């Protein structure tokens, strides 16, 4: 029973929007899924979630998809239909649209990062107070304490 699941599941791919990450060897969703669930179907050139029931609904695939081709349909064995939660993540903030089964909509925006992506200096300007490998002093201490 391999690779037959292409219907809706916790995270699912919208056929019209997915372009298989422009025919590269791997897709972004495949790169990021912490449970190795997203697969590129090389014949259809589309990604899909290979294991419905191993999906944590962590939204990593949803957030990273460059064409916003992935959504989540909540676990059907305990969530009624009609709820949708969809993020749009940028470099410093994330916007969420929460759509209720009763059609109400709430929108939220939260900060996610205060520094530019890629800019992290590990020592963060702190200095390390001891050279001694056997002392309890850790990197950037005691400055960072």
């Amino acid at each position, binding site marked *: 029973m391999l690779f037959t699941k292409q219907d809706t599941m916790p995270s699912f791919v919208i056929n019209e929007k997915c372009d298989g990450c422009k025919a590269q060897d791997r897709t972004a969703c495949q790169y990021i899924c912490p449970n190795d669930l997203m697969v590129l179907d090389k014949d259809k050139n589309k990604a899909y979630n290979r294991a*419905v029931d191993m999906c944590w609904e962590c939204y990593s695939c949803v957030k990273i998809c460059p064409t916003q081709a992935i959504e989540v349909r909540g676990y059907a064995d305990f969530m009624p239909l009609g709820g949708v939660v969809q993020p749009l993540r940028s470099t410093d903030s994330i916007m*969420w649209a929460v759509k209720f089964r009763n059609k109400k909509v*709430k929108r939220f925006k939260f900060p996610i990062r205060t520094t530019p992506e*890629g800019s992290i200096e590990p020592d963060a*300007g702190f200095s390390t107070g001891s050279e001694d*490998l056997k002392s309890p002093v850790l990197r950037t201490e005691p400055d960072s304490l």
Partner: protein
Amino acid sequence: MAACGAAFEASHWAKKHKQRVTVVDKASMERSGAVAMGLSAINLYLGVSKGNNTVEDYVSYVKNDLMGIARKDLVANIARHVDSSVHLFEKWGLPIWKDEEGNYVNEGRWQIMIHGESYKNIVSEAAKNALRELGEDGSYYERIFITEPVMMEDRCVGAVGFSVRENKFYLFKAKAVLDVMGGAVHIFRPKSVGEGLGRSWYPPFNSGASTYFTLKAGAEMTCQEVRFVPVRFKDAYGPVGAWFLLFKSKATNAKGEDYMETRAAELENWAPYGTSKPTPANLRNYLMLQELEEGNGPIYMRTDEAIQKLVAEIPDEKEAKRKMKELESEAWEDFLDMTVSQALNWASHNIMPEESPSEISACEPYFISSHSGASGAWISGPQDLAPGEHHWGYDNMTTVKGLFAAGDASGASSHKFSSGSFTEGRIAGKAAIAFCMDNNHIPDIDEETLSALKEKVLQPLKMFEEHSGYANDEDVNPNYIKPKMFMFRLQKIMDEYAGGASVGFKTSEPLLNKGLEYLQFMKEDAVKLAAGDLNELMRCWENVHRMWQAESHIRTVLFRKETRWPGYYFRTDYPTMKEDWEAFANCRWDPETEEWEMIKRDLH
């Protein structure tokens, strides 16, 4: 998190001393592990430099929450360094809630609120940038599943695993090995068994690799009996911390009774821990479970009452409206930052927290020493804090030479959470470099050992290849078993015999022995696991790891002849706490004899 902490720290010391650091991730570090989704709070921050708390106070709190069972030296070691990690996170770019004076906003005494959706991205970037400082001496591999330790005599000299992307078997030779592979989920049958199987509270991709690695290396393990049963919002398992601590919400039974008050007398039976504040997590569970057993469910988090109360404190109507909006945003962010499914569950049920309460309930048990569990390897504590018996040379080294553990992989240092795990990774990373300096050559690994390991690890692929042609259904074949059903079988055994959710977490000697008997069948069948592809090969090994976690758990629950953590599990044959079990229940599997040894150790 522990892996990122170790990479960050070890890189600094490795550079000074010309050592190499290699990090191997099962997935992609940016979103791997328990913090994949993000977090809405950092649950360990002391604020020592601001005079907020002391290390001693924290150690007391942890010892009390674990009903007396904790390594005070390990907890203190993490607590004295954790503020540094949190301050680094802030500098790196993690947005931490601040009040008007610019101080961190506390959720509770030890917890601070964060806008943590990108927590793992930020921390992993710091780790990778730290590795880059080493140039060629810093390496990062991803999508490689590490399955077995490599042992030469009594020393751990590396690890083996395989890529889940291409047909490559990997051997990593090392002077020191740090096991930071997370906790264990799906050992017990979960409450949702359809698609909802994926909605475990801790991630389904934490499958006991840490425990297996140290066990197989012959390391002494601790607290293998201490499972954690979280009580969270029902089914989607969203967090309750902000509701209880920040919004000061109450939980009640269906009649509106606060069972923490109506059943307070029970807490006296578990003194001194039950009578201290805050009440240990397992005892809070216990009182709730008693309600359910008497048919007083559903149990509700009174979110509506909490919000209304907070808004009612504000006399001005316009201000009150603004406050309501603010509380609503905070409530939804709490879920969206770390358990999006809970937001989805509310949306699917038309639940608005300010209008109606939400059900809370117990999950199935998990093994998570970074949180309110405690199970992991028995490790050496710091020389300046550990009593003689608890220190043997290098911080965080297991009883196996060269093998270190941190985060969920190390035991008896509960309540470290994300910041503490990262910090423990730092401690272990530095110590591992010190070990490398003192043991500065990589032993040779003979071809025979390597071939045997390769054959063992790839065996399920061979099994499938040899036998799948027999039947017309790849999953239904008398010659082998696929990992999915193997996992279900394990979960059923654990649930029914080792005190899972369906039996109210109750077990006894006859039940446990039966469970062990059935586990023995599983061990025999484990060599017949079959994998049709690399992903399935990973699932095979994940479930072998789970099986070993399960066995060490059952053996230790048997060993500890008392009930110390009602609410997590009950020994119906020994239903009370015993003074002579105010001790560690440790164990060790001997790789030579393949025998288990149970070891009782003093607390100190």
